[in-house]
């Protein structure tokens, strides 16, 4: 039962039985982060990495070390999927449980891991060596099934490679060695490429084609902040994370806010199932990204920045740290950037810990502040009062990269690409049932059909545009355009052929939202569970035609009353399939006879009572022959 599982304190069975962590070591970890409560996520990540658990006794001491209460520490520790109040294995294997992975053979792969390691999904081996888990989309849908083994990513798993990996791990091999024998002698960039292919299928003019180094930043230093903002505004650039807010306007708002400090934050937490474009930019264009952030800093007067990297992309941490270090060395970060007096800016890397909601601007800021990843109340908006209460610009990876290119080539150049209202190019991450999954950089305005032809998706029966919170369209809509005005998308394109079960996909997406809701507000926390249960009813063939109205009404309430974008879009998998695939629903819902609900199954309803009474019901069990 969904709700039966309880987390946190008060549950006697969940006593942590790892050896107590010495006080001195916890104190050292807190000190490393300046005993700053805003660095709680880093502190907890480190404790989890080293001791495989955030035990109640450690929480007490971390609280003491950072000036918080234990319940505040527990609030953070129990929020993020990658932190655990119970001991995890020294090697934790997280199989990616995205729907695309399921359709690419996840089941066979997980069976192999279970067999070789002798534990089931969700379990930790008795000797504390292994934990086996599933986790939602880790951004590898173009090479599914994939898995994280501690900080190492394995892709394109087959029963054979899964067996080899599991056996090597069991024999005591380090996860890195599965990727390469010479892992330790590889550069961070080579390591990333050994684990993950970037699958760049089509390089466009802006981001993935040839990009001159620091050309944008060089121009920006000779411009005033106001000129930079005007250039970004004139280019027509809109946020590439999905919401599509005008970037220049965002910068203008933040710049005009008078405050002691300003911040620039990069949202590298793409968590929408089917999205993996930022992964490619972070690997192949990290300098361009930091260049864009630095330009933004000059535009709004920020001296500090944060690059928030989703926990699933921990394999890119070293690479990014190296890039930041190199830029500091070259005078591209730090004091007096490019020799310009007063142009000071530096960036810290903040790693997430497994929470999709942290892709939401406010939740991302909460997470950077060391809090549970809960969205903030709006107003005030981040550009007015964001990180620690200071005006903050939050843009995603692709947006910053675009901005750097705009400063290099000019607003007109960018504005001329794409369509009216959707200027420039966009990275599409394409996966699912097609011949060439991967990244395509295209100007806005292509139709879905054109894209399908490019990617070898001729068999497509349904296309999910924009991940679960986007729109699922059928063949009769493939003429629609990929623009902000028609089919807006953060970039995810997931292709399903005619063999796939639409309701199975919808149920998967609903469970994703149930799992990822932060739980702050009633409609999203509770309502999505009801939606998920209702879809299960359809899948079991227990639904009435009235249940379609129920789905619509409940969705309406959730959308209208939810506090942030997650709840405002979580019913989309249901609503868009109801609209575009109505037959799927009517095929599995039957009218009830005589007003009696077919769906009510008396036998299962009294099952609990039967077990308690240890006998059958004389009235309702008359058909049983015992």
């Amino acid at each position, binding site marked *: *039962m*969904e*709700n*039966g*599982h*309880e*987390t*946190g*304190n*008060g*549950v006697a069975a969940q006593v942590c039985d790892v050896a107590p962590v010495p006080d001195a070591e916890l104190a050292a970890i807190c000190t490393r982060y300046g005993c700053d409560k805003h660095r709680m996520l880093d502190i907890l990540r480190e404790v989890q990495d080293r001791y495989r658990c955030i035990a*109640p006794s450690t929480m007490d001491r971390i609280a003491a070390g950072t000036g918080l*209460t*234990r*319940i*505040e520490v*527990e*609030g953070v520790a*129990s*929020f993020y999927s990658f932190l655990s109040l119970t001991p995890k294995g020294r090697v934790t294997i997280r199989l990616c449980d995205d729907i695309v992975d399921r359709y690419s053979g996840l089941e066979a792969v997980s069976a192999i891991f279970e067999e070789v390691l002798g534990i089931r999904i969700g379990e930790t081996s008795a000797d504390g060596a292994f934990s086996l888990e599933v986790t939602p989309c880790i951004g590898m849908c173009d090479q599914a099934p994939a898995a994280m083994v501690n900080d190492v990513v394995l892709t394109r798993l087959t029963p054979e490679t899964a067996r080899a990996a599991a056996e090597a791990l069991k024999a005591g091999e380090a996860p890195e060695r599965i990727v390469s024998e010479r892992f330790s002698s590889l550069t961070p960039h080579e390591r990333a490429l050994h684990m993950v292919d970037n699958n760049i299928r089509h390089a466009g003019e802006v981001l993935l084609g040839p990009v001159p180094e620091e050309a944008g930043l060089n121009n920006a230093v000779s411009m005033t902040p106001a000129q930079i903002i005007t250039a970004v505004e004139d280019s027509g650039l809109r946020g590439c994370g999905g919401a599509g807010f005008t970037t220049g306007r965002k910068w203008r708002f933040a710049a005009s806010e008078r405050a002691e400090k300003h911040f620039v934050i990069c949202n590298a937490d793409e968590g929408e199932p089917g999205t993996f474009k930022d992964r490619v930019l972070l690997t192949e264009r990290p300098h361009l990204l930091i260049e864009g952030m630095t330009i933004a800093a000059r535009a709004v007067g920020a001296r500090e920045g944060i690059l928030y990297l989703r926990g699933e992309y921990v394999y890119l941490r070293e690479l990014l740290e190296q890039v930041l270090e190199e830029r500091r060395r070259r005078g591209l970060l730090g004091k007096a950037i490019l020799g310009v007096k007063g142009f000071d800016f530096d960036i810290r890397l903040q790693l997430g810990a497994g*929470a999709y*909601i942290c892709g939401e601007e406010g939740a991302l800021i909460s997470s950077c502040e060391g809090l*549970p*990843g809960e969205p903030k*109340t709006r*107003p005030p908006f981040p550009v007015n009062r964001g990180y620690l209460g200071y005006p903050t610009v939050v843009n995603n990876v692709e947006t910053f990269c675009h901005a750097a290119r705009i400063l290099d080539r000019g607003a007109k150049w960018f504005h001329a690409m794409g369509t009216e209202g959707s200027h420039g190019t966009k990275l599409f991450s394409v996966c699912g049932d097609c011949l060439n999954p991967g990244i395509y950089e295209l100007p806005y305005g292509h139709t879905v059909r054109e894209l399908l032809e490019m990617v070898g998706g001729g068999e497509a029966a349904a296309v999910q545009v924009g991940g679960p919170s986007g729109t699922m369209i059928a063949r009769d809509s493939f003429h629609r355009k990929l623009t902000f005005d028609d089919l807006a998308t953060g970039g995810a394109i997931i292709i399903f052929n005619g063999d796939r079960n639409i309701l199975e996909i919808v149920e998967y997406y609903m469970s994703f939202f*149930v*799992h*990822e*809701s*932060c*739980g*702050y*507000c*009633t*409609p999203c*926390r*509770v*309502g999505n*569970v*009801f939606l998920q*249960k209702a879809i299960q009813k359809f899948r079991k063939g227990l639904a009435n035609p009235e249940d379609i109205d*129920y789905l619509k*009404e*409940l969705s309406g*309430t959730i959308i*209208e*009353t*939810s*506090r942030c974008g997650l709840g405002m879009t979580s019913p989309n998998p249901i609503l868009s399939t109801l609209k575009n695939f109505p037959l799927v629903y009517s095929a599995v819902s039957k009218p009830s006879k005589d007003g009696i609900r077919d769906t009510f199954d008396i036998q299962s309803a009294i099952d609990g009572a039967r077990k308690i009474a240890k006998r059958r019901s004389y009235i309702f069990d008359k058909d049983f022959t015992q």
Partner: protein
Amino acid sequence: MSGTKKETGFTFTIDGIEVTAYAGQTIMEAADEAGVYIPRLCDHEGLRHQGSCRVCTVKAGGRSVAACTQPAAPGQAVENETPHLTKMRRDLVEMLFHEGNHLCPICEASGNCELQAMAYRLDMTEATKFPYLEPCRALDASHPDIALDTNRCISCGRCIRASQDVDGKGIFGYVGRGIHRRVAVNGENLADTDAEVTDHAISAEVCPVGCIIRKRVGFAVPIGEREFDKGLIGHDIEEKRK
């Protein structure tokens, strides 16, 4: 109201009634002063606004917003008691009933319970259509004077804010996320904390339901003579306008 405040005042309407507000006031604060009641559960006088139950959802300028956190704006037309909004609110209240375990006839909060009273006010008269989630959470009776039955908790967080901001203690907090998010205490159990029955967080007015229980005082006032047995929830605010 001080003179300077009056000068910066502006007006807007709620369901056509003209209401005066001051810069920085929320829609709900202005409504309360004007004697217009907007249903609410997580908001409570004297506590920081949280905006989580969403029962106070109103339409302002065509958009649905939480009245307890949304700043009032000059000239805005706010909708409050429309059939559409009442339906949304009823859905939310039903969600809260179904998320926990609520057996009003045997609950000592009956008649004093804001959730129950809100159900009456919103005309929750028909059988509900939502599934029951039937959680099973341990009762914490470790403390000599206080008991905690979070099976009835509606996650309003009023106890958290009261303890932190009024009592300066921080006895309660949220743990977990999504449907598993719930209120927990700062220690192994309540006896392990510095909670006292005299804390504001423990007082009868803070917890809107029968979750925080003061031992040995239950049923001192008989059912039938309790707060919401005398009038609909919100009548005290609405009386200001008569």
